[in-house]
């Protein structure tokens, strides 16, 4: 196997491992559930995608024929990751998980805020946060 293919495969593998690690650090360190959701669903999926791309290149040049079937895993993960994130977020909303965001606005608060802002623009903006507390 030529050296430059090893370099490209290594780059893909390192990129994939880096993104998987970043996603897992995000899962471990971020402060509340809805922020933790971002790490695994975006970074880790991209990491596995990069890793599988590297593996595909490696086997293509190892066997001297195109190996497309590993792309199926990437395709499957890219389809299922948003779906599973959506359903986990829905379950968390259903359980009314507490989140630590500063500006918490429900739909009604947002609508009331818009009406209030139309009526008088100089009203103080903290009223939404207080009502949500």
């Amino acid at each position, binding site marked *: 196997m030529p050296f430059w293919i090893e370099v490209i495969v290594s780059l893909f*593998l390192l990129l994939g491992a880096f993104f998987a690690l970043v996603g897992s650090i995000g899962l471990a360190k971020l402060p509340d559930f809805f922020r933790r959701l971002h790490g695994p669903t975006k970074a880790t999926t991209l990491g596995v995608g990069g890793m599988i791309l590297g593996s595909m290149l490696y086997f293509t040049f190892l066997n001297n024929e195109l190996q497309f079937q590993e792309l199926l895993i990437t395709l499957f993960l890219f389809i299922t990751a948003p779906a599973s994130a959506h359903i986990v977020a829905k379950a968390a909303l259903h359980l009314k998980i507490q989140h630590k965001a500063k500006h918490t606005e429900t739909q009604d608060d947002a609508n009331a805020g818009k009406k209030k802002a139309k009526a008088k623009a100089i009203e103080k903006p903290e009223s939404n946060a207080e009502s949500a507390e």
Partner: protein
Amino acid sequence: MLSNVIVICIAALSLALFLNLYRLIKGPTLPDRILALDTMYINTIALIVLLGILQQSLIFFEAAMLIAMMGFVGTVALSKYLLRGDIIE
């Protein structure tokens, strides 16, 4: 060169799996734990792909595919249980 890179990648993924395990054990709420399991199976797919490169075998592809499918079904089933109190209505 490639074997060294694979060792580095396995180390990074093992660290990632330990971080997921920490969130799985600590995670204050149930959706946190489900999310940690979800991330764990995705990282496991990456580990198995690395093992396939290390052993130069295409057999591990099927294992990774199966884990991807079963992991998704597991995540959906657990979330559905939290959402509805029942998996199949």
